[in-house]
């Protein structure tokens, strides 16, 4: 059974069977990653461009590793956002890349919808590596993979996404994917960081972090942007830490058996205290490992569709 779409633009409308197929395929690749020789010839002869319009270290490296381990030819094309206005237009860049006969484009861009635009501009398979505050599908898939590894199944599993939901592509992709797989999803954060109509997605809103901890099996804790702009949405870091920060006292007071995910990079002492970030409940580094396996699975499944 192949994937039902030749691009991965987001988790919205990705059917359950596709998610299952990606997670199961990632299992195989994860096993390969444990071998002494971590390379398979699956995508030999395929050319993949990592087109990054926004700074990213871990996502880009994770994709690059995945591409190399599948024996694809990987090319990095980074464009600093500052040069966008005076530089070449997106359309021209994509047309140039296409003229070099590439098979797939992995794109990250600060503007939502840009991966969708790419599907109209060229014939390559497009993978969204994060578009603005819209979606980050491979992050959601690696989160789901990690959750499934630890919890077995999504049926009746309660997952809460904590932090700045309104400005997070990770949140939206997780919500779509988790709901599709049958999990019960809630969000927790300051009300200014929760989209006004989020409940229409079938998501519960919780403003009390202790309640979120008590009622959920999994917390997916998002990074809080510390720059001034984000601070317009809450009074101070101090207040955020006090009312939404997760620390071990809070976990122990409420519940012990909880799984904590974080897409990284962590602001230690803000959304997670250091003892939690390094503690027994978190699976943050497993997420990173699983990220490579998930991206191998996605690249493989898309790259071998006719």
């Amino acid at each position, binding site marked *: 059974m192949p994937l039902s779409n030749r691009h991965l633009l987001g988790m*919205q409308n990705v059917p359950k069977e596709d998610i299952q197929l990606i997670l199961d395929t990632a299992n195989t690749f994860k096993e390969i990653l444990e071998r002494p020789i971590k390379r398979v010839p699956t995508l030999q002869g395929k050319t993949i461009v990592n087109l990054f319009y926004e700074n990213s270290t871990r996502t880009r490296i994770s994709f690059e590793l995945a591409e190399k381990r599948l024996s694809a030819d990987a090319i990095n094309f980074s464009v600093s956002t500052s040069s*966008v*206005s005076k530089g070449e*237009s*997106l*359309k021209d860049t994509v047309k140039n890349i296409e003229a070099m006969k590439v098979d797939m484009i992995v794109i990250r*861009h*600060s*503007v*939502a*919808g*840009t991966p*969708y*635009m790419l599907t109209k501009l060229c014939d390559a398979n497009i993978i969204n590596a994060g*578009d*603005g*505050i*819209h*979606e980050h599908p491979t992050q959601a898939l690696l989160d789901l993979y990690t959750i499934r590894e630890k919890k077995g199944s999504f049926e009746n599993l309660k997952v809460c996404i904590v932090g700045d939901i*309104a400005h997070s*592509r990770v949140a*939206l992709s997780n919500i779509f994917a988790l709901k599709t797989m049958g999990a019960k999803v809630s969000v927790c954060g300051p009300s200014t960081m929760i*989209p*006004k*109509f*989020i409940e*229409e*997605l079938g998501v519960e809103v919780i403003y009390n972090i202790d309640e979120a901890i008590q009622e959920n099996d999994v917390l997916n804790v998002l990074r809080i942007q510390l720059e001034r702009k984000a601070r317009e949405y809450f009074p101070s870091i101090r207040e955020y830490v006090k009312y939404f920060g997760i620390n071990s006292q809070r976990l122990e007071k409420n519940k012990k058996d909880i799984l904590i995910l974080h897409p990284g990079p962590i602001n230690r002492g803000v959304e997670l205290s250091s003892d939690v970030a390094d503690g027994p409940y978190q699976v943050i580094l497993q997420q990173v490992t699983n990220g490579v396996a998930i991206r191998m699975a996605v690249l493989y499944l898309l790259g071998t569709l006719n």
Partner: protein
Amino acid sequence: MKYLFKNTTIINPEQQLSLKDFDILISDGLIIKIGQNLEYDNSNTKVIELKGKILVPGFLDMHVHLREPGREDEETIETGSRAAANGGFTAVACMPNTEPSIDSAEVIELIKNKSKSFIVDVYPVAAATIERKGEFLSPMLELKEAGAVAFSDDGVAIKTASILKRAMEYSKMIDLPIIEHCEDESLSNGSMNEGINSTLFGLLPLPSVSEDIIVMRDILMAQYTGARVHIAHISSANAVKLVREAKKKGIKVTAEVTPHHFTLTDDLLKTYDTNLKMNPPLRTHQDVQEILEGLKDGTIDCIASDHAPHSIEEKELEFDYAPNGVVGLETSVGIALSELFHKKVLSIEEIIMKYSINPRKILNIPIPSFAEGSKAEFTILDLNEVWTVDKEKFLSKSKNTPFDKRLLTGKPLGIFNKGKLFLNGEII
């Protein structure tokens, strides 16, 4: 040159006129005779057979951006006028967000001079404040004398309540309206309507309350000062309700709506098509329903296109980087006939009121009439022609329309103005 339009229907609700199978004879731009089976001199009369078509008082689009001076790569007074003629308009009112902005008599004179030789009348709307910055009043008395028909800082709302109060007090002296682009600047850093769709599509939200707040402010200020305020491109359900209530109280407020705001919703943005990006943004089905209600009950006085030409290069950018605005002159009437007339939202008389009579009343411009001895200024419509919008056939310099390939019923065939006939895409 004489023109004889034969066997046409003539409708003008302002004159309570509705004539079927009449002829109308024009000489030197004046109506000589209206009657049946008129006789004419074969040698110097152009005869146009209009069986099944209708003549209506010339349509006026009171909200267009002609981009000249400043962005002649996107539109000029000449190309904008041709687009207007092609869209069935004998007149347009052009907005002052040019470079330089229309805040001096010199710029008004430039526009008036440039438009003189074209078939369409161009009425400049002058800036309410110098450079539309919301700091100092523009020279409104001089601007009116030069030909300004209204004042607006369109593109933005007049910045503060205090300068708005003074602008209203001052413009009241000369009975010209203030046209307001209603948007609270502090709430306007998004690129689509705030709703479930802005969350789904990952675009920063522009809440409708941003519009409502300024509509309310402006209504209260119009009530307080006794001045006239005209709400440009109304788009939110609440704003329509606010205007309705204000009119009931006798406050001097009028409103216009664009064809895209009574036709399209924000669901369409799932394609991230930048030709669906405008300000105010497309809103929800409920907003559209309230707008249709407002058109029916007279809360909304006019239909105006907010014709906003943009270059292809600019509109091909990523969604957030692309500029706001769509062209509308050449689709407006077709959309209104399809969506309002044929769907029985408005009668043809009501359509004429919103395209011809009401905008002129708001702008104090004489209303064309079908009477012997009057200036001939009319639009020729075919209410039943089925046609497909093709942006490549636009006479506008820009092609940024959300309606390309749309099938429409009802088409403007041409206009007559300034002694000239524009029919089926060209001057005859």
